[in-house]
């Protein structure tokens, strides 16, 4: 019998005024759906990020692999530093961010209204969904020459590739989000005399917003994965371009640097999206 605890609680019982701090019993770490404190979470997340780097560092310094094929983290950091100092890293990063963002925004501009229509009106869904399901399997890379022919070789072409890579999946996800709006919310508006347009703009769109923002966050990741493909087309700057160039000369350290930079930018965007989500839709986070 845990006597300390009993005496603790017993002593408070009569007065019932001050509550002693909860005594933490044995906490099983390996529990299904167990809970973690914020601190534990952060420590583990940091560990999860750092451990692979340590493994990499060990592998690179073990001499098991040729330096050309497996640069060490230090090489990569040096490379990033040199890239920053000599080779206009900021320029490359900004143009890539611009391209991805532009392609992404363009895609969202079409996907949101279209997905809204598909999710709202069954005939639109019937007409477009199978077609989109058909197109979503098509590899964006295959469209490069077509894009060049139809769009040209300027910035437009890079944006178009990112658009193609993102758009079709995005529409389908938006439609799904819209379909998940509770029917009761729509019907409540109908009984108050809302017209079609009002229901769409005042209810469906508002109600789907949190899900839509999440969809945008996820598709943003896809947009980034198309960066290298997009910068195949007549680019002479950008992170993807730098990776491609490094590939030609087997500068593995630069390939690593480019990939990691893209991952970092992605991670930051992801967290920004999550932050906006938390701030914009507080009712989803209140218990």
């Amino acid at each position, binding site marked *: 019998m845990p006597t300390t605890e009993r005496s603790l609680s017993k002593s408070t019982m009569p007065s019932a005024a001050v509550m002693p701090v909860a005594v933490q019993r044995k906490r099983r770490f390996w529990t299904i759906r167990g809970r973690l404190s914020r601190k534990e979470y952060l420590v583990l997340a940091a560990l999860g990020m750092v451990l692979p780097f340590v493994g990499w560092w060990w592998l690179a310094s073990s001499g098991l692999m040729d330096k050309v094929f497996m640069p060490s983290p230090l090489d990569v950091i040096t490379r990033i530093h040199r890239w920053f100092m000599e080779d206009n890293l900021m320029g490359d990063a900004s143009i890539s961010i611009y391209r991805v963002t532009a392609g992404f925004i363009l895609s969202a501009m079409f996907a949101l209204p279209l997905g809204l229509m598909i999710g709202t009106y069954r005939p639109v869904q019937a007409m477009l969904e199978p077609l989109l399901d058909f197109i979503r399997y098509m590899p964006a890379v295959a469209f490069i020459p077509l894009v060049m022919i139809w769009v040209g070789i300027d910035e437009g072409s890079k944006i178009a590739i990112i658009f193609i890579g993102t758009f079709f999946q995005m529409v389908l996800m938006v439609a799904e989000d819209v379909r998940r709006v*509770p029917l009761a*919310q729509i019907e*409540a508006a109908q*009984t*108050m*005399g*809302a*017209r079609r347009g009002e229901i769409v703009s005042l209810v469906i769109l508002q109600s789907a917003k949190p899900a839509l923002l999440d969809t945008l966050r996820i598709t943003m990741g896809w947009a980034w994965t198309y960066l290298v493909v997009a910068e195949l087309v007549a680019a002479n700057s950008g992170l993807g371009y730098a990776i491609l160039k490094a590939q030609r000369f087997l500068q593995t350290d630069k390939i690593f640097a480019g990939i990691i930079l893209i991952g970092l930018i992605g991670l930051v965007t992801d967290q920004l999206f999550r932050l906006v989500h938390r701030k914009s839709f507080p*009712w989803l986070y209140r218990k």
Partner: protein
Amino acid sequence: MQTKIQIEAAGKIYTDGKHNVEALRAVNLDIAANEFVTLVGASGCGKSTLLRCIGGLEELSLGEIRVDGRPVSGPGVNRAMVFQHYSLYPWLTVMENIKFSRRLKVHREGITSSDVETASGRADALLSLMGLNHAALAYPDQLSGGMQQRVAIARALLPKPDILLLDEPFGALDAQTREVMHDLILHIFNLEKTTNVFVTHDVEEAIYLGQRVVLMAPRPGRIDTIYEVPLPAERDQDMKLSPEFIRLKKEILQRIRETSGMRTDKDMLDRLTRQTEPG
């Protein structure tokens, strides 16, 4: 008394291509202005379907429903509905939820500035009528279930509907909160002079609230019996213990058991009774 809602030979068939479900067959019912009618019946007997047809959210397959003599052909601002679940807008505050209908075009047409003031005053009045003054700026998720349903009722009442259609509005509330809501809804009914159609599973609730209790039976959904409630117009909680009340409750429950298609549940009870009696 003036007839507000006329339901004539109403029939409704749901079909998914292969199977047909006859949710309503030959339902006839007249509801007077400022009458409080409650609908009870076993699960699946078409209570919600009938209510939704009056509300214009579903179309009848046969027959007709008229409100003020005009056939129903869709939702209308004269008929407000309150549902059991999820119908508040979580992204709006309590006050914004209540005023939601004022953002709709149909309520903005041809209104004068004094109308606006009246409406604004009405929102405040409803808020305090519902005892929600302190919660005007809260969001629905911050309220208890009972408070949420009060907001939903206030929202439905704002555009001064003639008819209030309620589908198990208190189904998710606990017994205590429910009693409070009963008195509240009766109070509003007397104040606003609406015509109420109220669907519930709870026979006690149906008798306590209704002037008439309409008992429906399933397969096909139809009206089985209509009971006049032998209680004075002004209700209070003690009446629930009166002999008339208890007698009517027993009678209705008995009839629901008889009409319900839930053979197994009924058989079960019979079997248990048989088992326990000799044992």
